[in-house]
């Protein structure tokens, strides 16, 4: 394969656009899931909340204002084809610059502070971004952008389960995490579950799981069934839209799995609010 040159300015421009698009336009799958929930939600207050959420999405898209004032920490999953040669500057610098421009020129909130345990001083341009890069075959660049709000992220959990706990251990940890979170993460939530890997990788799996389209089926029937089971149990908790009581606590549960050490069963739950913003650009 010939080397394909990609100017990093194109990376910056794509990310700037993704930052705005993700925050103004609620993805179609999420909008459809909220509409569907209105038909099944048993609580009148819950239905009123769901009405507000779709109306809010309509206003945001029309007026080009953020769906939510928490426009998130910028999380990016970038797959780089191994035939790509970046030119015109540093790749990561270009990514941060895209976030900087998107958040500044898109009137998005800057929600990042440096020295988290000390000064907590705002970096004023929402950088640095969290960048997960993968080298893949081919000559393309795929950028997945997911702004992640703080309220729901705070409700997430990492669980170092014992192998003997098995599937039941996973079910208990997911349900307990969502139950304890209650109204805090802005339900109806989307739940990303990572199973396996190492302590660092399992949280990445849980985050990446959140990028799936609502309504899509896990290709592995064993995990598809577990997703259904988890969704049923979560929606039996009674938390409901905004935690005011109801039958729609989660819109979807997505699982990502990888092998683990013989002694371990790491498992992570990444909680995502109803504003499940995820957009992709291909260069």
């Amino acid at each position, binding site marked *: 394969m010939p080397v394909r040159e990609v100017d990093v300015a194109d990376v910056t421009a794509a990310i700037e656009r993704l930052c705005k698009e993700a925050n103004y336009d609620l993805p179609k799958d999420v909008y459809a899931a909220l509409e569907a929930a209105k038909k099944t939600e048993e609580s009148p*207050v819950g239905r009123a909340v769901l009405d*507000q959420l779709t109306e809010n999405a309509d206003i945001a898209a029309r007026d080009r204002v*953020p769906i939510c004032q928490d426009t998130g920490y910028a999380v990016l999953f970038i797959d780089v084809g191994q035939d790509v040669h970046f030119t015109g500057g540093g790749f990561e610098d270009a990514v941060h610059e895209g976030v900087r421009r998107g958040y500044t020129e898109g009137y998005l909130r*800057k929600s990042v502070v440096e020295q988290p345990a000390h000064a907590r001083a705002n970096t004023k341009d929402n950088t640095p971004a969290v960048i997960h890069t993968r080298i893949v075959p081919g000559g393309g660049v795929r950028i997945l952008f997911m702004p992640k709000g703080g309220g729901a992220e705070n409700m997430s959990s990492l669980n170092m389960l014992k192998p003997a706990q098995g599937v039941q251990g996973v079910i208990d940890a997911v349900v307990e995490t969502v139950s304890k979170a209650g109204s805090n993460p802005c339900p109806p939530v989307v739940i990303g579950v990572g199973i396996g890997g190492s302590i660092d990788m399992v949280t990445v799996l849980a985050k990446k799981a959140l990028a799936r389209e609502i309504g899509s089926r896990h290709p592995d029937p064993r995990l598809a069934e577990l997703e259904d089971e988890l969704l049923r149990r979560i929606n039996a908790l009674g938390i*409901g839209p*905004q935690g*005011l*009581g109801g039958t729609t606590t989660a819109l979807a549960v997505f699982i990502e799995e990888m092998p683990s050490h013989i002694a371990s069963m790491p498992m992570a739950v990444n909680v995502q609010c109803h504003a499940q913003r995820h957009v992709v650009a291909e260069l």
Partner: protein
Amino acid sequence: MVKRITTPLTDEVVRDLRIGDEVLISGVVYQARDAAHKRMVALIEQGEPLPFEIQGAVIYYMGPSPARPGNVIGSAGPTTSGRMDAYAPLLMEKGLKGMIGKGLRTDAVKQAMVDTTAVYFAATGGAGALLAQRITGNEVIAWPELGAEALARLQVEDFPAIVVGDCHGGDLYEVGRREYARQV
């Protein structure tokens, strides 16, 4: 039935509010979240005056996105109230009557609401574009260097909220959840 209320709040108005009541709030509310709360409590502890009259006041736990030119405010929905729990009882002791936010509160906050006759409203989290349309005035009154976390005086008109914690000890999050919980 929707109740229309105007700030500042009196004990009489607060006593009349019960969990589950839908309200439309008009008047002034103060925007403050984590950093502004830390500073307000520091002022009280040093015996210094607050930048606004707290007697009867309502605080909105919110940090907006920047306003587009010509707009009053950007997206402006509530943030998670629990992070302000460490500061809220002292502010209620000083006269704070209402809090607008979202999510669970500690028992200490709920007890302070009973002891001082205060109320906790929830606005819909993640409906910041919608809620911004009910905010008609916005003026930063302290700590502009905090950006989205600055203390601001907001004018609101028919701002929609629901009473989730009342001065009679009621907690809608507990009651609502119990009503719809199912066995699996």
